[in-house]
């Protein structure tokens, strides 16, 4: 995998490219307000619907909370990833990026960085919603933050790679979840178990899950950085 995937540019240009792209994406997200006015309400809606489906008074909801939390995060993430690359497909912006001279690794890392910020905001709001509506107690805040943080980096890293892959494809709205959700199965499992431990619902240790989530994030960040060049050039 030599020259086809080598990222051009020194580390410094890659990072400054990443900062440029991330700043643009975040500014765009702030201006368009789609995240705040659509993705976030959607996520909150699902939180409420789960409560209707699983009568909160029968303790089922309490037991299922960590899993539900991550299901909502995953589905909202698919929307966020789709949007992050959807805006690029509009009016040929993706072609613009291909022509721009920005390093592919920089574009990838910038996209992932912006996604990460958006998803962390989503995580936080959802966590507050869960605490309020499901009456959840947090017994291990440090572990909780670590689990949510590493899992979200993993989601953003894998989402960035598959978002770039599907950006120009026909049927990307359906293809993206089909590709992304099975890939994120370990994040769902690890995130759910880790949060269960952090909420005192599971008796096992939680930090090994953080380790596994961290490795997931590391592996996909690395591969995404390497693969974005062929993706941008040929896909």
């Amino acid at each position, binding site marked *: 995998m030599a020259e086809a995937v080598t990222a*051009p540019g020194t580390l410094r240009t890659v990072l400054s490219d990443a900062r440029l792209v991330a700043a643009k994406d975040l500014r765009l997200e702030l201006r368009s307000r789609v995240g705040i006015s659509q993705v976030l309400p959607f996520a909150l809606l699902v939180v409420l619907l789960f409560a209707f489906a699983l009568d909160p008074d029968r303790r089922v909801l309490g037991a299922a909370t960590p899993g539900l939390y991550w299901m909502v995060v995953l589905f909202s993430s698919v929307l966020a990833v789709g949007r992050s690359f959807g805006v690029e497909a509009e009016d040929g912006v993706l072609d613009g990026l291909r022509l721009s001279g920005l390093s592919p690794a920089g574009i990838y890392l910038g996209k992932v960085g912006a996604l990460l910020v958006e998803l962390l905001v989503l995580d936080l709001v959802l966590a507050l919603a869960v605490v309020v509506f499901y009456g959840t107690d947090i017994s291990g805040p440090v572990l909780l933050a670590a689990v949510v943080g590493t899992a979200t980096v993993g989601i953003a890293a894998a989402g960035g790679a598959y978002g770039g892959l599907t950006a120009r494809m026909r049927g990307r709205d359906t293809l993206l979840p089909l590709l992304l959700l099975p890939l994120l199965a370990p994040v769902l499992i690890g995130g759910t178990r880790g949060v269960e431990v952090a909420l005192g619902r599971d008796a096992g240790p939680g930090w090994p899950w953080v380790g596994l989530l961290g490795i997931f994030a590391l592996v996909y960040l690395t591969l995404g950085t*390497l693969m974005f060049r062929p993706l941008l050039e040929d896909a």
Partner: protein
Amino acid sequence: MSDAPLTGPHDDPESSDAETPEHFDLTPRTAAATSSSKGSGKKWIAVAGVGVVVVALAFVLFNGLQSASTFFYNVDEAVAQTSTLDTTRFRMQGNVVAGSVTTTSDGVDFVIKYKDAQVPVHHVGDPPEMFGPKIPVVLEGAFAANGKKFESDEIMVRHDSTYDEKNEDRVREADQDAKQRATG
């Protein structure tokens, strides 16, 4: 109609970053100026990346990560810590006492034993198929408020029940395992 006057060729393309907007210089940036970083000697980045991935995956495969799911107390350890455990959830390992199993309306009641400590258990839900007398199991749940009874909602069979003669070994292994986790 304000056709800008044509500018002459510049020798130094960088000089045109100057603030003379009316005469923005169109002299092309040279390849050197724009793609200074087009590198064929960057193969090491790919190699390093592949290395990172391989090492990380090998770490996962060869148990570099400690298990997240085998942490439990043996019955005697749990009994000794009844007051500190209070009603928090934990996992408890022991053998099902022969003849103690009775089916209830919402699950099963039995006594679990390890070394000389015994605890009566009320389990809610269906026990797994392999469940039965003398089987080593790991329960998940919490002591009831009085600390005399264990309320379980999950039974995990520790290993294959068909090798009765090996049970002692397995239990010993589990014992060491639990100690290791608890201390380290």
